[in-house]
């Protein structure tokens, strides 16, 4: 599949690496060139400097032919704007959006985006970990809400 990922933070870079290893055609966008350092040297996808909310950048990323758009940049509103653009203007079938605010995530889930809230997931994981039966000396679940 052709995949465009907006945001090359830990999540964006990790996802790009995973998808590319699975054989997908991946383009990663970030407004900060320094963010691309998170990609391994063997990453064979495209790195594109610019904002995923900008039509020129989206077009350069080949948004019109993409099957998947993932917005995992830092701001909720930017992610939501870019995702709705991918869906409504460029007709991308599958759009996944990170929205930190759980209520906003819920609202836009109902408005056609596939959203996930790391805040909500983090709370649930932390809560579960507190009450999980732990073998003596074992660390808790490792997946925090790190963005």
């Amino acid at each position, binding site marked *: 599949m052709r995949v465009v990922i907006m945001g090359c933070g830990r999540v964006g870079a990790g996802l790009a690496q995973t998808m590319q290893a699975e054989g997908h055609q991946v383009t990663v966008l970030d407004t900060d060139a320094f963010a691309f350092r998170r990609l391994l040297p063997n990453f064979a996808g495209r790195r594109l400097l610019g904002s995923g*909310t*900008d*039509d020129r950048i989206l077009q350069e990323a080949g948004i019109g032919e993409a099957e998947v758009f993932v917005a995992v940049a830092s*701001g*909720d*509103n*930017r992610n*939501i*704007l*870019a995702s*709705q*653009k991918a869906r*409504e*203007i460029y007709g991308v079938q599958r759009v996944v959006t990170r929205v930190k*605010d759980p*209520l*906003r995530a819920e*609202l*836009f889930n*109902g*408005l056609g985006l596939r959203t996930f809230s790391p805040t909500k997931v983090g709370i649930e994981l932390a809560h579960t970990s507190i009450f999980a039966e732990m073998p003596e000396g074992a660390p808790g679940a490792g997946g925090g809400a790190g963005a």
Partner: protein
Amino acid sequence: MYIIVVGGGNVGYGLALELQQLPDYEVTIVELSSSRANALRDELGEMVVHGDGSEIAFLEGVGASRADLLIAVTADDGANLVTCQVASHWFNVPRVIARVNDPRNELLFRRLGINSIVSASGAVMAQIEATLPEHTLIPLMALESAGLQVVTMRVQEGSAVDGQTLRSLTFPQGVLVTIVIHDGTAATPSGDTVLHHGDEIIAVVPREAEDAVRGMVTSPPVAAEE
């Protein structure tokens, strides 16, 4: 009438000054930056609230569910869009207005059902068009939901419509010529009304017919129409 203005920049501040004058309006200005919010509060008082207008929990706190109108005028299109969507879909605010900073975002805002859009560059363009001597078609008002515009045009000498009766002209589908101003006198036109160069026409025009109509009042008739 309760109005929430999100964004206390120059636009939001100017808006607040205007709205404050109106007797039966209750207005809240929401500003994200605490220093800016404090500065505004010194001048405008308690109507200014510091917070994130795109956050549902915060909007709840400023009474969004009883708001009659929400206006999002920050410099960030993402915030303006999300704020308006939250207001309409979560709080059922009956009317929302969004400022669009990047004109390329206008189409998205429209598709997503934001009833009114204020585009600074669009407004400036309309002003520029109005000052050009060859100005021919100036949008007066947009009827967003129907995709229509109310426009004013001036009939140019030798154009396709100059000297013709309305009945003899074929305007694009959906065009309604509502007022013809001839020698300073406005009249509701009939089929027998003859258009003269220099006349001003007020018409309702579908957005997609704008160029065709502009052509008719400015350019000579196309040969194929003979």
